[in-house]
Structure formats: C-alpha cells, structure tokens
C-alpha cells in the first residue's frame, strides 16, 4: 500500500510537470500584491482564485491582493516585450538574455515598487511563467507549468512552484523612502589612524611543518652533556627546548588602513635539553631559560568589510627582534658545592638579534573587539657585521648564531580609530 502511495505521488509530481528555469530569489512580501499580466487579457487563472492558492500554499503570505494588469495588457511597448519574452523563454537560457531593452519597458518595471508581476503566456501544453519585480529589468524567476482548464489547479501549481518561499514584511512608504536615502552599511571611510593593543598566546617550534625532519633534527634531537657539550652549537635549539608555548603582548597602529607598525613582546620558558643519562645532573634541581623577545614589525594590511559589524584585515609583516635569555638554575637542596662542570656551564650571548616575517589576519567585531591570527618565521642570531680579525680562525663560534623557528599565535585585541 505504501509503495503504491509512493508511486502515485511520483506520478502526481510528474503529471504536474512544472519546471523552474531559473529563480534568482525575488523578495516575496507578506500581504503581497500580485499583478497578473497576460498578453491577450484572457488569463489562464482567476485573480481571486490565485490569491486563495497563495494563501493555501504559503501560510506566511498574509493577505495577498491579486489583480490583472490591464495597464500593461493595453500598452504597445509592454505587449511587444511580452510577446518577445514568450518567444524567447527557453530552458537553460540565462535570465540576462531576457532583459527588457526598451527604455519605456525598463521604466515600467522599475516603477513597480514592491508589487510583483506574474507573467503568464500559454505555450502549447504548458503555461509560461515569469516573475518581475522592481529590482531587475529581466525576469527574476521563470519556468513553465502544465496547462489545464482547471483554473484552481493551475493557480495551486503556480503558487506551489514559484511562491513557496519565506515572506518578508512589506515596508511602509516612509520606510521605503528612508531605506532609499539610508547610507550604505558597508560604507566607511578608511580611518587615518587605527590603534590596537592585545594579548595573546602562541606556539613556536624549530621544525617547519611540511618540511623533511632531517632539516632540523640535528638541532631538535640534540642533548646537552656535562652542562655544555653538544654536537653543534650554531642553533640555541641544540641547548634549549625548541617547541614551546609563548605568551605575547603587543600594540600597533595602522596608518590610512594600509601601512602600520607594531611593537611586541613575547615570553616563553624553555627547559634545558639535559642528557638524563648523564650522572652529573644528579645535583641539579632545575635549569631553564626565560626567553624574552622584543620586536618591532612593519605591517602591510588591507581591510575588507564583510558585514556592518565584522571586518577582516589580512596582514603581512616584516620586522626585527631582540632576544634576551634569563637563566633560572638551582641545585637540589642537599647539594652544598656544585660540580666543576656546573661552574663552567654554557653561557649564552647577552642579546640576540633576529628577524620576523609572516602573515596573518585581524578579525574585528563591532569595530573594537579583535581576534588576531598570525603565522610566521622568526630568527635569532648575531648577524652584526664585525671586521675580520687575524684571530678569526681561532675565535670560538658564537653560540646560537642561527636560531630559527616558526610560530602561530592567537591574540585578543582592542581597537581604536582616530
């Protein structure tokens, strides 16, 4: 029985054979006024019946009003366009090819205000349907429905095919007028100066994603023996933890929405990579370094308003930073005299200088509250040029001369505009 019902329903659906060629979502107003436009004044549906069909098929439509559009029926320009439209309405033809070219016709459509014109023209076994509103000089929706002498069934079919959508409240005359003079929500002038300050968290690691492990494994897998011995000391990641979370504080400004400058501070605590099998560390309670980065970035950005309350600003930045390490080391409480190796443990340079490079985006809500996502590369080293000296060959390598890592960060910001 159920199967039969399904088959019947499919048959009914097939028999109705209505087809939508295109529907670019015209606005269906609550209490809509629908003008039925036919070429010969012999409408295949009855205006009052059509209104009842609308109410049956769309509970949100309120109390629609329907009438035949005699003004267009009697008008030469409209009739010419109408017969042309009937002649040209084809499946798969984009609506732009159905534009009314005659200025008189275009003016007629534009002056519809919030009324809907329902164009109906018989074509063999079908009725062509096209729907116009004031917003376009071409039909907003078009298709065909199966012709029938039963005007009520035809009305129902048209209503179900083209008018079965959510309705909007109609605006009053004053509201329409106001809307026309209302400024564009997305219009805004680029502020000459935008300032922001924020705090964030992030994560940095020495290994770059999507690159082979062996590029960095010599640094990341390194361990420190005897308080100072590693295979290689060119990168600080041979000594201290190379993947850690950091926190950041920053403030910046953008000039004319395009170029900006940003001061930032980052802090992370890095454990020493001590070799656990080395017995000399038995005396040690903890050994770590606080990493302080202070940097200055130049930013290039462009703001795109998405909605009145949400902007996206993609950013590219390039900057430099100074990095300081503060050592935090302590022996176990029972140890009186530290070992010789402890006394002569590795010392880092006072300050490292490096570069920052990256991209990101600021997502600003309600003009003030920003979320900031960044990703980039940062380096620390001693790239200050020194004149070669005769002792150069004998001089020890600078520890951490090439310390590079990558980072991602998430920040919460507050924005001001001046």
């Amino acid at each position, binding site marked *: 029985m159920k199967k039969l019902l399904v088959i019947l329903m499919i048959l009914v659906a097939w028999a109705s054979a209505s087809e939508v060629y295109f529907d670019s979502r015209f606005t269906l107003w609550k209490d809509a006024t629908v003008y039925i436009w036919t070429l010969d004044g012999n409408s295949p549906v009855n205006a009052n019946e059509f209104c009842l069909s609308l109410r049956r098929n769309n509970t949100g439509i309120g109390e629609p009003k329907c009438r035949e559009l005699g003004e267009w029926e009697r008008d030469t320009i409209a*009739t*010419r*366009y*109408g*017969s*042309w*439209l009937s*002649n*040209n309405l*084809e499946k*798969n*033809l*984009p609506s732009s*090819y159905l534009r*009314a*070219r*005659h*200025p008189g*016709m275009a003016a007629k459509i534009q002056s519809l205000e919030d009324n809907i014109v329902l164009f109906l023209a018989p074509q063999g076994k079908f009725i062509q349907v096209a729907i116009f509103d004031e917003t376009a000089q071409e039909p907003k929706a078009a298709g065909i429905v199966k012709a029938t002498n039963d005007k009520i069934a035809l009305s129902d079919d048209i209503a179900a095919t083209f008018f079965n959508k959510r309705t909007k409240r109609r605006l009053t005359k004053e509201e329409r007028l106001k809307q026309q003079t209302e400024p564009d929500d*997305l219009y805004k002038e680029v502020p000459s100066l935008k300032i922001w300050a924020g705090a964030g968290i992030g994560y940095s690691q020495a290994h770059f994603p999507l690159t082979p492990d062996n590029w960095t494994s010599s640094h990341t897998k390194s361990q420190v023996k005897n308080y100072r011995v590693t295979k290689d000391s060119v990168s600080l990641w041979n000594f201290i933890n190379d993947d850690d979370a950091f926190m950041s504080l920053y403030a910046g400004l953008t000039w004319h929405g395009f170029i900006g400058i940003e001061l930032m501070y980052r802090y992370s605590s890095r454990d020493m990579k001590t070799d656990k099998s080395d017995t000399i560390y038995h005396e040690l309670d903890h050994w770590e370094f606080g990493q302080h980065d202070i940097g200055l970035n130049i930013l290039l950005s*462009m703001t*795109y*308003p*998405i909605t009145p309350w949400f902007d996206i600003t993609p950013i590219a930045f390039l900057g430099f930073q100074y990095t300081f390490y503060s050592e935090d080391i302590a022996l176990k409480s029972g140890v009186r005299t530290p070992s010789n190796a402890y006394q002569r443990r590795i010392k880092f340079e006072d300050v490292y200088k490096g570069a920052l490079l990256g991209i990101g985006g600021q997502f600003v809500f309600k003009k003030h509250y920003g979320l900031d996502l960044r990703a980039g590369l940062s380096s620390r080293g001693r790239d200050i040029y020194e004149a070669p000296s005769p002792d150069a060959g004998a001089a020890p390598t600078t520890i951490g001369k090439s310390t590079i890592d990558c980072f991602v960060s998430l920040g919460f910001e507050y924005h001001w505009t001046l």
Partner: protein
Amino acid sequence: MTFKKSILSIGFAICMLAGCADSYHWTASHPSYHKAPYGGIAVTGIENAFVITRSNWFAKRLEIGTDSIQIKGTLHCRNTFETELRKAYGNLIVLPDSANTKFPEESLKIDERIFIKGHIPEQGVTLKDSAGNVPPVVLILHEFIIGTDLKRENFFDYALIHNESGSLRKPDNVSAIFSYTLWDNLKQRPLFSAVDELQQPITIYKLNNLTNLIQLAVQKIRKNLYEGVVK
C-alpha cells in the same frame, strides 16, 4: 559585495600588470545560435556603414576627386559588398537602412571593455522587406571603417578610444574594421556579433585592391558566422 568588488579590482590590477589586458574576445554568440545561415540571408546597414578615413590618400590613389571620394568610394564598397554577399547567399534580401535605423542606437557588449554601438530592432518588432516578407535572419552591418594602419581596439575598447592616432607617416597597410550582428528576426535577438579587422599590405593601391579588401571582408564575415555557432 564590496569585498567581492575589491577582490575583482585586485584581480584586475594583477591582470593588468601581468599583461593579459591585451587579449580580447572579438565575437559573442547567443547561447541559442546553433545554425549558421545557409542559402539565404537578409542584410541591412550597407547604405551608411562604410566610412573612408584619410580621404586624400585614397582619393589620390583611387583617382577619384577628393570631394567625391566619400560618396563614390563608399558606393563602390557597398556595391562590392552586396555582390559578394549575393555570390555567397543565393537568396539575398537587401533591407534599406531606414528599416533598422529608426530604432534607437544601443550598445552590445562583446567583451569586458568591448562594446559595439548600433541600431538594433526592438523586442517584439520584426524587420520586413518591401514585399512584406519577414526574413528569418538579418545581417546588420553597423560600421565598416576603411583607413590605413588602423587597430580595432582603438575604436572599440572604451579605455583606448580617446587615444590620439599616430602621426601621418607612410602607411604599411590598408585596414578595414567592421562590426556586425547576425540578427534573429523571428525571435528578435542577436545571434552573433563581432568586430573584425583586416590588414591589406600596400604595394600599389588601386580600385581593384579596394574591391579585394571588401571581398576578403565578406569572406571573413562568413567564416566567423560559421565559427561562432554554439555547438
């Protein structure tokens, strides 16, 4: 929307920098253009479409008086055009220009910056010949410019049309630039529109060279009408 526009304009700027602004589409077909005209065609616009620039240059070579070069030269072109078209389409109907020029002039978009200007019949109104018959397709010749060393982008790309032409020097080619529309007279829609350019190297320029130019133009139009068919 603004976002989309900005992206588009950035894309456009990149496009300009990359130099792809040089590539134009010079033809446009209606999605329903499935069959090129064969055997019969109607033509309109040929009374006024032909324009000869550099009258003096042509007058000297074609041995026609300077004051009558426009009239005699363009009449020659028109007659050649008609004869050539008649050779190609046995059943040729020539509609007077007035059949079409009574409609307002409109722009037809061919490409992003390329627009044809011309008279196009109103939607719902068919063109009829003197006997009252309705020819199914009509070739509307909008413009046929004859000159020396002309480039069609200087005439049809709206970003370039204000460019001054170069100084008068010894020309290399006689050029013909012509725009036309194949009009579906039954459904009143443009089936195919194009702007074509022909360059004819100059050796000695006589009237038969001009005849040849028009012949080549007709061949080019026919070729384009075939190639423009939407498969």
